[in-house]
């Protein structure tokens, strides 16, 4: 160690020099305070022993200046004094000294003190080095995150959030956001809007958001119904996220022509529907588990419909708003949120009012969650800029006039499920995609009727009692195993009128005996009465989904006709 001794008394200096040199340290000397500062700057001693009373500049003043020059470095200063009253000694420490040593010097104490400061210096240096490493790593990480965020933003925020009927705020806790806002125009008109809140914040949450955004934008642009998109997202998240991680979401299918929204909410706080005058109409409550929790079989895509007049607004938020905390740790809470909507703000100012109130409430306290807020307004679709729509439609051009016949023999019927293939072919038609769920129901029901009642000749009346239900499926398996002949023929036919409307025909014929459909239908096949006369559960449902449904031949052939665009009143 290099030790500086500052003392105006030559003999004292000499004595001290001798003791310390003997202990193995390098010694440099100064004869007053000013000189001590010069030597500090020039020679960078590790420890300084300083007399309190010196000419030119006294020890205390010199100590202050040296400490200032040292900045963050630790340069221990030990005052040398012959004063022994408590106040004088305390003054030494207050002036910036780290310790004091009273004259005459005691060798043992002097050595112990110097050793103690050597240890302290080493510790300080280690700490500084570690701190610098952490700062450097952190900067490196932040830099990487900013680059990754640019990629993330391009994927997650490529939609139509800038549409004139949307206001939104996304304030992430970390560089990456655990909250996600997605909005996309549908090729058929209308909009899909998605507010998601992943468990946790930052990178892990953002990683889950990437495939989700891809699915959302991709499937919306291709015209898929929101229910199908939700199913796909749920399946994806369930398969990629570790157990315990999920995404709470409020998802909206907004129809400008129907003046209504269809909502799916899982694990998010209540959303508010606000009238044109700025009054709260109703709270919409979450009825589902968050996305990524349930398997596809258990997932519930049920959506609720709400009508919206022009100028009505829908407010959605992540729990970061309601759970925002002030300095005392109290939460903003739903009461404060509700109060904003009773305060007679002009409807246009509500969004800013919510932002403002939350921000004032939180004040200087540290935020502990991402906060996201979005306002969605019902407007005339013509008021919106169409550019975002046209961009997305670029890829959408499918087959319009086509026909397909597909026949399944015994072996295929036993071992193959043709529904995904049939769905796939139908879904190539852009206009049919938004009707995917309904088409699936029609095809699935009619196919299973043809197969079970036609080919396998099972009587559906069996299913009317619980014991019969079990028997039915036992019999089904038995007949399936024994099946040696039979077929199901599926024909699909699609035609389109200049791309603005179209007709889809599905004909399914089976090798069964048919049934006396005329007796079952009475005269008017569209009449509601048929619901009671049919034992099959599926048929009334299919009636409600099709433009027309008719049985042909001996009842072993059925034709369903579906028109698009669909009439709104259906």
């Amino acid at each position, binding site marked *: 160690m290099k030790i500086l001794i500052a003392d105006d008394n030559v003999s004292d200096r000499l004595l001290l020099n001798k003791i310390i040199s003997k202990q193995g340290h390098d010694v440099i000397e100064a004869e007053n305070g000013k000189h001590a500062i010069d030597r500090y700057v020039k020679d960078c001693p590790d420890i300084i022993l300083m007399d309190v009373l010196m000419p030119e500049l006294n020890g205390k003043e010199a100590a202050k200046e040296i400490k200032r020059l040292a900045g963050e470095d630790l340069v221990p200063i030990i005052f040398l004094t012959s004063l022994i009253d408590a106040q004088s000694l305390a003054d030494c420490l207050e002036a910036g000294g780290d310790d004091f040593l009273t004259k005459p010097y005691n060798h043992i104490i002097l050595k112990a003190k110097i050793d103690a400061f050597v240890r302290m210096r080493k510790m300080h240096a280690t700490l500084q080095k570690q701190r610098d490493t952490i700062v450097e790593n952190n900067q490196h990480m932040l830099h990487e995150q900013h680059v990754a965020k640019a990629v993330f933003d391009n994927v997650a925020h490529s939609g139509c959030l800038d549409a004139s009927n949307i206001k939104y705020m996304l304030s992430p806790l970390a560089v990456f956001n655990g909250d996600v806002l997605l909005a996309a125009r549908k090729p058929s008109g209308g909009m899909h809007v998605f507010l998601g809140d992943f468990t946790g914040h930052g990178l892990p949450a953002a990683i889950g958001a990437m495939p989700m955004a891809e699915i959302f934008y991709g499937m919306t642009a291709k015209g898929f119904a929101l229910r199908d998109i939700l199913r796909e997202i749920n399946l994806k998240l369930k398969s990629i996220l570790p157990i315990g991680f999920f995404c709470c979401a409020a998802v909206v299918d907004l129809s400008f022509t129907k003046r209504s929204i269809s909502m799916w909410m899982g694990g998010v706080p209540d959303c508010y529907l606000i009238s044109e005058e700025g009054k709260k109409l109703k709270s919409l409550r*979450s*009825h*589902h588990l968050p996305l990524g929790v349930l398997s596809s079989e258990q997932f519930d895509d049920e959506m609720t419909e709400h009508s919206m007049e022009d100028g009505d607004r829908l407010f959605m938020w992540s729990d970061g708003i309601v759970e925002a905390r002030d300095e005392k740790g109290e939460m903003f809470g739903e009461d404060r949120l509700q109060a904003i909507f009773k305060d007679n703000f002009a409807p246009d100012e509500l969004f800013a009012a919510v932002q403002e109130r939350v921000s004032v409430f939180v004040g200087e306290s540290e935020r502990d969650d991402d906060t996201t807020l979005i306002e969605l307004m019902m407007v005339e679709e013509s008021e919106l800029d169409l550019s975002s729509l046209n961009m997305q439609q670029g890829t959408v051009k499918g087959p319009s006039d086509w026909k397909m016949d597909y026949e399944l023999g015994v072996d295929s019927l036993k071992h193959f499920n043709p529904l995904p293939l049939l769905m796939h072919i139908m879904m190539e038609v852009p206009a049919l995609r938004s009707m995917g769920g309904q088409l699936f129901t029609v095809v699935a029901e009619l196919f299973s009727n043809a197969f079970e009642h036609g080919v396998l000749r099972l009587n559906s009346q069996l299913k009317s009692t619980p014991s019969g239900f079990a028997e039915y499926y036992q019999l089904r398996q038995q007949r399936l195993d024994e099946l040696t002949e039979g077929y199901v023929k599926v024909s699909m036919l699609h035609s389109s009128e200049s791309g603005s409307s179209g007709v889809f025909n599905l004909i399914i014929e089976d090798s069964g005996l048919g049934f006396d459909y005329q007796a079952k239908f009475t005269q008017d096949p569209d009449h509601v009465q048929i619901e009671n006369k049919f034992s099959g559960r599926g048929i009334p449902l299919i009636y409600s989904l099709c433009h027309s449904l008719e049985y042909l031949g001996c009842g072993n052939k059925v034709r369903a006709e579906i028109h698009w665009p669909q009439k709104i009143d259906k």
Partner: protein
Amino acid sequence: MGVQSNIDTSGKELTIKVDGRFDFSAHQEFRDAYEGISADISNYVVDLGNTSYLDSSALGMLLLLRDHAGGDNANITISKCNDDVKKILTISNFEQLFTIQ
């Protein structure tokens, strides 16, 4: 403080009690409460009587416990929730996965 657990005299029911804030800081303790415990446990009770607050990572931990306890076949009761805690569980519709009392 934190997380306590005990098994009833039949050896089939494990009760896990969480005090104070149930958030990520309880993560390890909560897992330790049920991992590596006797395989005979068929019932789980999560006692939130002294839990003041629950965040989404706690919801995640409950899902982890559910997975450990057999997923869809798990038999888990979340008991003694105060109104705030109950509300968070309800918003997330956890009553579809757990028995909530």
